[in-house]
């Protein structure tokens, strides 16, 4: 695995390790986030995303390793001296305060004495930036989920943190709102130029939002790179699985072929990995003409996704294989339930982890 440590970065982690009992929730995490960068952090549930953010913010003390903010070692500093903003998954708004007072809270804490009119001006500016004008006097129980999200964001941003950590900030919102908030988040961040580290369990969110993408697996970094690179070149079979766009088959390399339960597949692209597997993207499969590599599976069902349609097939030994048909490529094929089809792809579209 590569170390992702660069000089002159806003956040830098070196060998960060956090254990609960004898289990390592974080295992020697090293990476850095540059100024103005939007980094998304993707990982399955329980992979340590929240623990990582909490360790960076100072709510958990790591056993080993260092956290540096703008070159300064803050590993032993309390959260409020780190200059990090934290947006909680459940928003964690102060339930007894109004929208205005929630946002102004951080300004009124400051050791630097600022006047109430200055606090007021900055709070209103921030509410304006996140699009909450007119709601200042509302209680936080009297606003919608999306508005709560904005209050949580404004409350964190108003104290001008050097880095903002967001723990599944859109997880509590419905799909429609999530799409709108994605755009909003990016717009707000671009206005402020503060680096964001955004944890998400959704691969599409991670791919869409990050300038760079970290894939976390069981407390360790599996891959760190631009979304396109991660998407096209997953570093190992687990990354391919999390991305939720690859069919991943078990098997082993024998000579020039990757041998699976479903037959041998010709090898083209090889990636070194600790566990052997073969991955091919959903949208590279076809049933129309034999493209060189392939297997046979029975059709089960389809799912309409708007711009694409997902077809599900099942191999004789019960492995579900997905085929994604983009509707811009013409109308979908009609399949007959239970009938066996030959699913094929060009050998160079498959990745063999060996």
């Amino acid at each position, binding site marked *: 695995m590569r170390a992702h440590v660069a000089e002159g970065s806003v956040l830098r982690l070196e060998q960060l390790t956090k254990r609960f009992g004898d289990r390592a929730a974080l295992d020697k995490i090293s990476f850095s986030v540059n100024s103005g960068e939007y980094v998304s952090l993707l990982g399955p549930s329980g992979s340590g995303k929240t623990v990582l953010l909490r360790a960076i*913010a100072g*709510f958990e003390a790591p056993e080993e390793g260092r956290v540096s903010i703008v070159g300064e070692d803050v590993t032993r500093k*309390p*959260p*409020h001296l780190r200059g*990090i*903003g*934290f947006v*909680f998954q*459940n928003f*964690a*708004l*102060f*339930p*007894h305060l109004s929208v205005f007072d929630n946002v102004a*809270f*951080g300004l009124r*804490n*400051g*050791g630097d004495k600022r006047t109430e009119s200055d606090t007021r001006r900055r709070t209103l500016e921030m509410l304006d930036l996140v699009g909450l004008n007119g709601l200042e006097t509302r209680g936080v129980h009297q606003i919608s989920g999306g508005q709560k999200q904005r209050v949580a964001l404004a*409350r*964190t941003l108003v*104290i001008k943190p050097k880095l903002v950590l967001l723990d599944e900030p859109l997880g509590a919102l419905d799909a429609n709102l999530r799409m709108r908030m994605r755009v909003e988040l990016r717009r707000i961040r671009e206005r402020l130029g503060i680096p964001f580290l955004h944890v998400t369990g959704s691969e599409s969110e991670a791919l869409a939002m990050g300038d760079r993408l970290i894939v976390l697996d069981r407390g360790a970094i599996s891959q760190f790179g631009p979304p396109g690179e991660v998407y096209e070149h997953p570093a190992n079979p687990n990354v391919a699985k999390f991305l939720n766009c690859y069919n991943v088959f078990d098997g082993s390399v024998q000579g020039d072929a990757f041998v699976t339960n479903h037959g041998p597949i010709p090898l083209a692209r090889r990636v070194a990995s600790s566990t052997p597997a073969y991955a091919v993207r959903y949208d590279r499969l076809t049933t129309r003409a034999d493209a060189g590599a392939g297997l046979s599976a029975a059709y089960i069902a389809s799912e309409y996704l708007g711009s694409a349609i997902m077809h599900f097939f099942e191999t004789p030994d019960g492995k579900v294989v997905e085929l994604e048909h983009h509707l811009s490529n013409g109308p979908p094929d009609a399949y007959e339930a239970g009938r066996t089809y030959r699913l094929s792809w060009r050998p160079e579209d498959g990745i063999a982890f060996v």
Partner: protein
Amino acid sequence: MTATEIIVEAADATPPRSTRSVGAYLLIAPAIVWMTLFLVVPMAMIVYVSFWTQTTFKIEPKLTLDSWQTFFSSSTYISSLWTTVRIWLTVLAMTFLVGYPTALFVGLFVKNKTLQTTLLVLCVIPFWTSFLIRVLAWRPMLGKEGAINILLMKAGIIQQPIEALLFTDLSVVIGMTQIYVVFMVGPIAFMLGRIDPNILEAARDLGAGFWRILRKIIFPLSLPGVVVGAIFVSVMVLGEFATSAALSGRKVNLLGNIIVTQVGSLKWALASVVGVILTFIMGVVIAGLLRIVDLKKEL
């Protein structure tokens, strides 16, 4: 949500209006009957009796203001009214000062739920002995030759035993605080336990120190618990007579003690007057406390 709201909402599902209200009223009927028989009727009776004519040996249902005049023209009674208010306010303040930090410790700093429950149960253990024993146990503690005086003298802090410890306001306040503090701790610890830890972390992240978090976040969020605790303590202390009888050597006379004495000498009318006054004070206190927070919204 209150019980009546639940009833009304559940009843909303049944379409015909008449059955709906009949059903709802049937549900509330036992409670209404119970409250009428054992609360409203006795209260009305006490108010009524307070206007009866009292002679030395008997009482007649002839309406008069005599007993009320007796109460308000006697400096003994008036001063016991003030003593009651003074002891009540002091005990209320003491239970808060002792109880809030305790609740803070149990509800917020003890993260382990089992330990939390254990600690709360520990607070209740004194209630496994009788009230009288708990009160009387203070005598060997506070007396002139009691444990506290002996300790202080051994430690050389005082030369003479402090006599003011027992049979004074102080001993009554100490005794009552010990007995009733748990009613303050319970509701506050309950409210504190419900605070989302992320909220406190958010406050810390935004730069608030411990005292500011306590003042701006924790205390306001626990206020309903304080109010409920204050109501419990107030109602119990205002109606008290046993602690003051046992620990004040009859020097501290609360309204409760007067009722006991008057009933003892069959002066029902005057006892009723004091009872009405006491009930009125409790009503005002509870109404006042409930104005501080909207309990219906908070719980």
